[in-house]
């Protein structure tokens, strides 16, 4: 057990200084405004600037375009990226997909992409979910049909976040509809400039942008296949497990909870509410902070944040989301009506951070699978409860409704 401050070597201290100074310079008002407007989770300027320093792939050796950072400096960088609110959704999905590309891509493609990933010019997004498919990724219906040395893709994917800023999407397709559900799948790394691919933006009410990607007789070379034909589920598993679980975290440096970052907007909202409680006055001249009932409600949110940080793995994911959903609603009530003011509105506490937390919160209950999916994982893998036998959990059943690929809102 150890929760102590990490003692830094002089080199590490100096690295920390460089990181803070660099990120401070990179995160200009323009970049923040661009992110607020687009909801992209991506700034090409910042992305390339991080690449220049090897910070997109910080653990890779310098010779391969990385920064060769030790675990402590990696963690320092991670924390400072969070502190500076650097838009890094696309950087994250790229690294997630890379683990599969590294393992399954043919050597030439792999080599080319490795350089591109480090340089920030090869960026990947996740082509998992389908418009009528929800969290049941293995029910994918986007068809890939072989035609000589090529594959023809048809169908559509939704929530392909960052597609419009990426060069490739990590696509799960159905190559054999007659095989059992998990067996007829094949993974591809599809170049997004392929003719027949159309990207359409969708906005979430948090302001985040994601996409529907349509595949209309899009033809790609077989070299973009990752792993064997009909062996896609195994290929997908690495990145999916990483997204669903804690990663390594064995060095005692990483966050315990994979929902840790969900708590960040709640911390910002809580700090805004604390500021409001300390600095504003009620009609009778007293401060909200003088009222024990206000303090108790702040204390409750803070307790839930702390509990969220202490909840491990997929349990932490559920807890992080629920703490945010409930905490943000409570802070809106507490500061009402100030809490519903939008970012930029005059008088909004923390420039709208409470309003933002409440809007952002709802997405965290679906990212990478709904919290119900995670609850099912916990029920079966943590508690050892028996697995229910749904008709579709074992075999692939053609859906009776909605033809494959029809988007639905």
């Amino acid at each position: 057990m150890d929760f102590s401050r990490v003692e830094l070597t002089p080199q590490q201290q100096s690295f920390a200084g460089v990181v803070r100074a660099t990120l401070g310079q990179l995160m200009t008002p323009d970049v923040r405004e661009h992110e607020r407007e687009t909801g992209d989770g991506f700034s090409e300027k910042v992305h390339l600037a991080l690449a220049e320093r090897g910070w997109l792939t910080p653990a890779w050796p310098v010779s391969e375009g990385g920064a060769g950072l030790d675990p402590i400096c990696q963690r320092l960088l991670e924390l400072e990226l969070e502190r500076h609110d650097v838009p890094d959704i696309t950087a994250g999905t790229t690294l997630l997909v890379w683990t599969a590309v590294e393992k399954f891509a043919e050597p030439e493609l792999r080599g080319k992409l490795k350089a591109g990933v480090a340089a920030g010019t090869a960026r990947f997004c996740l082509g998992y979910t389908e418009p009528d498919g929800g969290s049941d990724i293995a029910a994918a219906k986007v068809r890939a049909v072989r035609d000589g040395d090529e594959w023809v893709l048809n169908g559509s994917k939704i929530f392909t976040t960052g597609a419009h800023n990426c060069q490739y999407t990590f696509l799960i397709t159905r190559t054999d509809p007659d095989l059992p559900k998990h067996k007829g799948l094949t993974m591809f790394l599809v170049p997004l400039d392929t003719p027949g691919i159309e990207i359409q933006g969708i906005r979430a009410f948090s302001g985040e942008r994601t996409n529907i990607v349509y595949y209309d007789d899009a033809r790609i070379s077989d070299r973009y296949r990752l792993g064997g034909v009909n062996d896609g589920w195994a290929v997908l598993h690495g990145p999916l497990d990483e997204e669903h679980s804690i990663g390594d975290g064995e060095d005692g440096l990483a966050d315990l909870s994979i929902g840790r970052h969900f708590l960040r907007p709640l911390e910002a909202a809580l700090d805004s509410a604390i500021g409001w409680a300390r600095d504003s006055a009620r009609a009778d001249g007293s401060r909200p902070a003088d009222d024990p009932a206000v303090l108790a409600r702040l204390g409750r949110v803070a307790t839930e944040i702390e509990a969220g940080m202490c909840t491990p793995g997929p349990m932490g994911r559920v807890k992080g989301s629920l703490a945010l959903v409930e905490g943000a609603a409570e802070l809106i009530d507490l500061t009402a009506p100030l809490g519903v003011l939008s970012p930029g509105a005059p008088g909004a506490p923390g420039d709208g951070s409470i309003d933002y937390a409440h809007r952002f919160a709802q997405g965290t209950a679906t990212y990478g699978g709904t919290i119900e999916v995670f609850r099912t994982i916990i029920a079966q893998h943590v508690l050892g409860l028996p697995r229910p036998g749904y008709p579709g959990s074992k075999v692939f059943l053609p859906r009776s409704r909605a033809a494959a690929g029809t988007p639905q809102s």
Partner: protein
Amino acid sequence: MDRFELRRQDFSLDENQEAVREAFAEFFAKESPTSVVRAAEPLGYDEALWSKLLGMGVATMSLPASQGGDDATLVDLVLIAGEYGRSLSPVPLISHVAATRLLSRAGAPTEILDAASHDERIFTLAPQPVAAGRPQLVPDAAIAPCVIALADGRLALYAAAAPGPHVPNQGCTPLAWWQPDHRSEQYELATGSGAAELFAEAVREWKLLMAAALVEMTQSALGIAVEFAKTRETLGVPIGTLQGVAFPLTEVAIAVAGGRNLVRKAAWTAQYEPGARPELALMAFNHAVRTATYGTTTSAHMQGGLGFTVEADASLYFLRAKGWSALAGDPAADLAGIGAQLTGAVAQS
């Protein structure tokens, strides 16, 4: 309070009440589909729609006939407010009706009441007593030039030349910062303890009408989620067959059913036994706020990622659940008021 008293427990609507409800349900369904709601964003005001609604007599129907009204009851008003909530219409219905009723009770002159009943000026209510030098956020004040406020124990109508600038907010309502302006035209409505009582009653009515709107808004959001759960499949079954989906939706249905009846009971009691149980309106509001928060969150969530998108109607409800309920201040503060009523009530019995 005798908890074993023999009282009627009739929550049903009579024919006239049902007719009122249906008329406004039809009006909002026809005139205010979600496309109209979206088109009015971010200000949250559709002048033409408001004009049509005033044409239905909504502003003054509950005033006594002697003041140009139709003697409609608070029960009628919560039914109308419910249909308004269900439709999310971009009109200042609740503020304007609560303010108009306050003007009537305070004996405001006919010309002011006339202005409220027609398409001339929008009236609203500052929900907190004025603290000198400190502006407050007032619902609908970005479209209403006329604000009723309690300042230094004096209840007055402040009529400015123009409403204040809109403050962008989650619920897309015409919220604005406001404070008494000595340049505005003023009309004194009441002073002393009468002023405070009139003000408190108006705020309670505002909350009661908002409670009705929030409950029915949640019913709408629930309806969308139930339809989704019936048709959307996962693992080869409609998601609505999974208890993890069905049970939260039943929780919403339970809250809506209870909340709707609580609103009715509070409205009936305020109408027919005024002053008997003032806490009922606050209970209805507090319960409705929680119902709307949980219900619209659940509705959006049960539609997965789709429910998180702007184009899903679920988003309209979700954003207004807090965007509306937060307008009158911290809803939890009312709980202390209810508790005070209870501890006092026990003392008297």
